[in-house]
């Protein structure tokens, strides 16, 4: 009997009782967007095997700035969502905060759905 390999990322919508396992962090965000489009529901990151230490802070700018050391051309937005999940934030809450901080100019996207601190 074959054993399925564990995917590095997983998320859940508790309202629907639906789980999603993905190979990439940003696919978690794509799942959130698709799910939210139909339901308005938020989703939680339940598993994230992220390289390196996750910054021990609630401050989004600092989280992105520290994670940037491990990534070229920006931190995948899903990795940021996974890091913020350890601080108790849902994916929707993190995306909303990212939008707010981006609108101040403190974060930007060097490529689509990848973040860098200004």
């Amino acid at each position: 009997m074959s054993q399925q390999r564990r995917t590095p990322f997983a998320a859940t919508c508790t309202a629907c009782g639906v789980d999603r396992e993905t190979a990439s962090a940003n696919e978690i965000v794509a799942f959130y967007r698709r799910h939210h489009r139909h339901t308005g529901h938020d989703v939680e990151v339940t598993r994230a095997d992220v390289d390196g230490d996750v910054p021990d802070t609630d401050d989004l700018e600092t989280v992105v700035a520290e994670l940037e050391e491990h990534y070229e051309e920006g931190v995948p937005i899903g990795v940021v969502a996974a890091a913020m999940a350890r601080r108790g934030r849902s994916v929707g809450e993190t995306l909303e905060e990212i939008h707010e901080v981006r609108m101040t100019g403190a974060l930007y996207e060097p490529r689509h759905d990848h973040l860098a601190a200004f």
Partner: protein
Amino acid sequence: MPYSMTRWNDGLDEVERVSPDITDETNALPARYFTDPDVYEMEKQKVFGQYWIYAGHTNCIPEVGDYYTRTIGDREIIVVRDHDDEVRAFYNVCAHRGSAMVDETPMTDPDNARRIRCPYHLWTYDLDGSLTSTPASFEDARLNPDLEDEDVGELDAEENALMEVRSDRIGPFVFVNFAEDPMSLDEQAGTMKAELEALPLEEYQLARRIVSEVECNWKTFGGNYSECDHCQANHQDWITGIALDESELEVNDYHWVLHYTHAEDVDDEMRIHDEHEAKFYYLWPNFTVNMYGTADGYGTYLIDPIDEERFQLVADYYFKDPDLSEEEAEFVRTSRQLQEEDFELVERQYRGLRSGALAQAQLGPNEHTVHKFHLLAQEAYEA
């Protein structure tokens, strides 16, 4: 007796068109129509751009100005109740420079607006789509030294209205069609329309929406829904109480109905319809209405493709009271169990299809609903 042989991708056999004769070995769509990304791109136009597609339920937007959005393929639309109490659909695209106007708004959490306003340059539309106002900067040429104010043309309200999407209904179910000259919804739905409209579907409210993502082509799940040859082996809890031998699969032009007879009769209060059975309707291409045999409520499935290898199952449950009773909540849980069992089956089937070994599947004699489904897909591709 006809002789049939599996069409493997072994260099010996070639695939053929879906035979209209279900006893032929080429009675199913070739496997590549389930796995090829180019096929899904084609389907966006030839299937989801040509046929009537489910857009939502009118009960979710009961007041004038209530609206929700819906994305079908690459097209995003607004479904809104206008001042005449009519439900209409428009592209979520401003007539000025093409901006999307309203944020994504799910049917489960609709919004309300007196008018539809584009946030980019504030062009504003009435709920019937007509352009009602533009800022003063569109009425004079104050910033352009090459123009006089009198050179500026008027923006006619109707000529610059939102682009309406053709819509029609089966009872409270709203459908849209993007084709220029489509068949009518009456023709596509056939007898299903009259049968459903004879029932008090408007008296039921959306109580639960559960959206799952499944790793297979949307047609793989559509085929699985459409037959019950797999039920005996795979839905052992559900088939307790169902007399599969007495059940019947009825095929029509663009829809099919699965009549599941219960082994023991069920009280009339536990059904909306008269027939003493569960009736599951599949309307080509990706919508089902589930008239339960054992619950005073009904459900719908939207089999909404993400790409060629994934879809979202949007499962809606309607009951008299949107606050579910304990029994109704248990009913929904049982339905979820059935879905999970089916997801495992279709994902397993799709894993096999993706390996590329099978060139063209073959259907059994009691999979005539799936045969119809494949014939309709072929008809759409070849149109």
